[in-house]
């Protein structure tokens, strides 16, 4: 699904990623670890198609429509409600039976009761749950998750665990974390960035 050779990225003079080799097979669960500033987020942005490499080669076997990317930021509009945000993304991704799918995800992530509230009124954890709904909305083949447990409380983390258990093997997952032990039960491979 993902093949990288001597992958690198520079922003002007600043080199943020260098010489990464990576092979992620279809259905694999790859965990990326590394210290702050080691290039985890940049690697994930490259794999998601948000940035272009400046060095090396990168091939991703999924179209843009088949990638779900969870960033540090939730990538949702604060002045829109959860329902309006997901409806927008559902339209852009041409999700079949959009309303049913949105309702199911909001139920699963415990946001159904607050679906008509603006995101600005959500806690950070609730916003992260909404971001997870956004990522899963279109049923992506490749999930690129940048520190997905950030801001989640115990209940939220359990929900994410359950979701990852469900996805394991069925979808390809590339996830960065500072807590590899948490993802150890799911991981099929690890990449440590220096």
């Amino acid at each position: 699904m993902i093949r990288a050779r001597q992958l690198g990225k520079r922003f002007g003079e600043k080199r943020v990623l260098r010489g990464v080799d990576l092979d992620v097979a279809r259905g694999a669960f790859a965990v990326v670890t590394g210290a702050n500033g080691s290039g985890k987020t940049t690697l994930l942005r490259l794999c998601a198609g948000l940035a272009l490499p400046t060095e090396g080669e990168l091939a991703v076997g999924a179209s843009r429509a088949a990638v779900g990317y969870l960033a540090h930021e939730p990538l949702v509009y604060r002045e829109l409600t959860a329902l309006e945000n997901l409806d927008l993304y559902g339209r852009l991704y041409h999700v079949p039976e959009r309303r049913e799918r949105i309702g199911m995800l909001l139920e699963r992530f415990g946001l159904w009761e607050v679906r008509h509230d603006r995101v600005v009124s959500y806690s950070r954890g609730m916003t992260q749950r909404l971001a997870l709904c956004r990522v899963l909305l279109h049923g992506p083949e490749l999930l690129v998750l940048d520190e997905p447990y950030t801001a989640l409380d115990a209940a939220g983390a359990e929900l994410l665990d359950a979701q990852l258990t469900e996805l394991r093997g069925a979808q390809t997952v590339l996830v960065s974390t500072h807590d590899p032990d948490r993802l150890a039960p799911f991981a099929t491979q690890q990449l440590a960035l220096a």
Partner: protein
Amino acid sequence: MTYAADVGALARKDLLLELRARDTLPAMLLFVVATFVVFHFALPAHSSQLAASGLLWVAILFTALLGLGRAFVPEREQRVLDGLVLAPCDRSAIWLAKSLATLAFLAAAELVALPVFALFFHGLGGATVAGVVLADLGICAVGTFLGAMAVVTRARDLLLPLLFLPLAIPIVVGGVGASVAGSPGRYLGFLALYDVLFAVLCWASFEYVVTE
């Protein structure tokens, strides 16, 4: 059909955001009306139609700049632009939808501003109104494109006017020409040509603006 649906969904979102936040249109309205009021008292009595026409176009341009500066603020605040760029729709749909939304705000501001201008100064001719309509298209097409470029930089508030105003000079030339010339046809044609040329350029190259 899909492209139109994508543009529709994105433009609807921008209108909804403005309806909720109300931080663009009121500012544009206040600015343009205040400008006319100030110049009404600042310009000497019996000042020429030429001077008033120039004032109209300066006011339109800076009012538009106010709206353009706000255009990508919701996307910048939460980096939502990344989410939109990742969506499988044609990336130019983001530019087109944002241009349409900005056009709607500018047109709404002008619906109030033009009668105020006519009241305070020398009235408005049909050619001037046609010029404003054509100029709005060019302003929104180019300004939205440059707004997307500027929003990812730290000096965005400075960069947008620096990039936009030189490119808007032909709009001012065409607009003032259409307002004061005896035969405004060729100036309106010039504005239409500017619109088509820059709209195609912006549409074709927007993808490169939003990719790192």
